């Protein structure tokens, strides 16, 4: 390939001619990108400290919506819980599933009376929460950062229908 032809192909790449073929290709790429990043693998901007240090405030991730296509959320999974739509979500960790009894005693998580090891909780915690049963088709979610008083942390049980997916990493 000579220099002129090379320059022409570079120019064609950055400044393509508006041919029907190009327009169809651009439209298909835009459609695929919209479907993939709008409905399957949604970009996330994490705001807040409730999942520290696992997920840092200000970090970027993707929400993989096919994460629970063939399975149900299980303990220790990190999930995104939706509000009315997918613009604002809560990133939390599943600590108990339906039918289980959960409680916090001096910061330790107990499920059905047994202490659960939580290596992802790095900050000291002194939470106390009386036992409660997780309802049918629900999971109990809590953030990894439990350094704040229990009243200030947003956690609890939610319907599995609200779980949109899992963070990609």
């Amino acid at each position, binding site marked *: 390939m000579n220099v002129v032809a090379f320059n022409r192909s570079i120019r064609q790449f950055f400044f393509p001619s508006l041919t029907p073929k190009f*327009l169809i290709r651009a439209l298909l790429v835009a459609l695929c990108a919209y479907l993939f990043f709008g409905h399957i693998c949604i970009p996330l901007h994490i705001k807040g400290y409730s999942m520290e240090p696992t997920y840092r405030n200000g970090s970027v991730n993707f929400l993989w919506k096919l994460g629970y296509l063939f399975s149900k959320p299980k303990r220790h999974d990190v999930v995104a819980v939706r*509000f009315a739509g*997918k*613009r*604002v979500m*809560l990133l939390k960790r599943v600590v108990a599933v339906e039918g289980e009894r959960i409680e916090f005693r001096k910061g330790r998580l107990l499920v059905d009376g047994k202490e659960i090891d939580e290596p992802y909780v790095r900050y000291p915690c002194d939470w106390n929460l009386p036992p409660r049963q997780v309802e049918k088709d629900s999971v109990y979610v809590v953030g990894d950062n439990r350094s704040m008083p229990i009243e200030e942390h947003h956690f*609890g*049980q*939610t319907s599995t229908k609200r779980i949109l997916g899992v963070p990609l990493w």
Partner: protein
Amino acid sequence: MVKIRFLIMAVIAAGIVVLAIFYLFPSEEMKVKKQFHLLSDWVSKDPGENVFTTARKTQRIGSLFAEKLELKTEIDSMSGSYSPEEISSLATRGRLMFSSLSLKFYDFDISFPENGIAKVILTATLKGRSTTGEYVHETHEPECILRKIERRWLFSNVEIGEVLKK
């Protein structure tokens, strides 16, 4: 090439016409959404907001509500019935506690179960900094009922849904 350019220009022109039609003849859904945008604008507060803006905004807030607003929240002391004047007064007091405040709405799900009634489920986020320096960030999923009274959509019921139940 000329044909393609003509086609692109035709698509742009059609887009402008469609936008103009939407702007000039808004649907009922857009009119309902507009009430939320107004509420967001009038509740929000920029740092250093002057007293005239504060007075103008808080006076207008009441005009978005019906004669009686039924509010239902998990905080029992806040649940109850409020008149537009009471809402304006509460908004004034609430805004005074913050140096900056931002109320935003997302993910509108609007339906019209009956003629003249709109049911809206959406996500609401309230962010702000109190005058004592405390940072506030709350997100909720309210279900709102708006009634069309004298050609205006007014808030008549607001129920704050519980996404996580402790």
